[in-house]
């Protein structure tokens, strides 16, 4: 739990990660705010804020009297959202780092291909 971003944002991101990874399936129940609070050892109000972020963005919805559930289609939506920021979040820093190491674009492309072959096909959900 680092502090460069507000804790409730980190909780929201963690839940999103689990949905993207498939650990949290759609239409399944998400742990309660109190459970999150106990697990992360934080104030329940903070945990609640994180959950509310996701309710506001439509990733989670509330079933009265039962709890919070993962909304249908949220995984697909999250994947799309992350694809859009993929370039900014990963490609830009990669290029910046490569530049500071004097690695040309061609060398970079070669490196990417070599590594992709080594790692083999990656299927989501499998470790």
């Amino acid at each position, binding site marked *: 739990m680092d502090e*460069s971003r507000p804790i409730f944002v980190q909780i929201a991101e963690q839940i999103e990660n689990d949905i993207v990874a498939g650990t949290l399936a759609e239409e399944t129940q998400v742990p309660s705010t109190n459970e999150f609070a106990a697990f992360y*050892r934080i104030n329940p109000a903070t945990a609640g804020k994180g959950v509310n972020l996701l309710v506001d963005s439509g990733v989670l919805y509330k079933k009265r009297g039962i709890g919070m559930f993962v909304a249908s289609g949220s995984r697909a939506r999250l994947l799309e959202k992350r694809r859009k920021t993929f370039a900014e979040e990963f490609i830009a*820093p990669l290029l910046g780092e490569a530049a500071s190491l004097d690695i040309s674009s061609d060398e970079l492309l070669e490196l990417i291909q070599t590594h992709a072959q080594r790692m083999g096909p990656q299927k989501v959900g499998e470790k």
Partner: protein
Amino acid sequence: MTSVIEVAHLTKRFGDLAAIDDVSFRVEENAITGLLGRNGAGKTTLMQLLTGQQFATSGTIDVFGANPVENADVLQNVCFIKESQKYPDEFRPKHVFRSAPWFFPHWDAEFAEQLVEDFRVPANRPIKKLSRGQVSSVGVIVGLASRAPLTFFDEPYLGLDAVARQIFYDRLLQDYAEHPRTILLSTHLIDEVANLLEHVLVIDDGRVVIDEEADVLRGSATTIAGTRAAVAAFSEGREVLHAETIGGLSSVTLEALSPSDRADAAAAGLELAPVSLQQLIIRKTTLTAPATESEMEHSA
């Protein structure tokens, strides 16, 4: 919001010294508020004033809408646990847990029993013979099991070792989640309790210097680090809370950065580092503390 405590222009003088100096604030119902500050800042005095144990020199205090002094209706719903509690001779922990329910109407005996096990308190040994940590545990157990609608913890866990403190924080969170109540926690182990707090009240020299939501406070500053030039360029026009330099590197704590600011900083090759609640509070209250060498290099 509903406030459980309302304090207006509260002052407490001991002779010439103003231990509490024109303090005004509200404490929200069912929130965990941290009462933070250095030793001697006035945390204990403030809590004593709020529980009617000390008498104010001037100003008003409202707890549950009434003055707490000599007010049994209010005080029955308040539990004040302090660090060095002296118990009557011959008392053993079991006597404490047997007598507490006579004074705390919301006492949960089962919960108390569970806590006695968790903290490994020897219920039958005379308190005089217990270690400091065990005596602190007794106080903490009373504070938790009292389920008082307003509970004060005045650094009662100083005698506890790290494991016991973690047990305390965990049980506090768990029970607070299931039985919401208003809790005021005073400590100078800020980082340990930072995540438990919803609201932060910082006292320095008898005055309230910070009265803020914990999340807002955390988001109010960021540290950026990198080469002197890059840092200086980025800090241009922004409020600098703290600066440190070593060789050609510089680290600066700035007031809140928006997401786009953060992106800019990253793009400029600067490293973004967290500012913990403890560091923030130290920065904002160290008005008269001696400057470090690096600070002196950079002042002016």
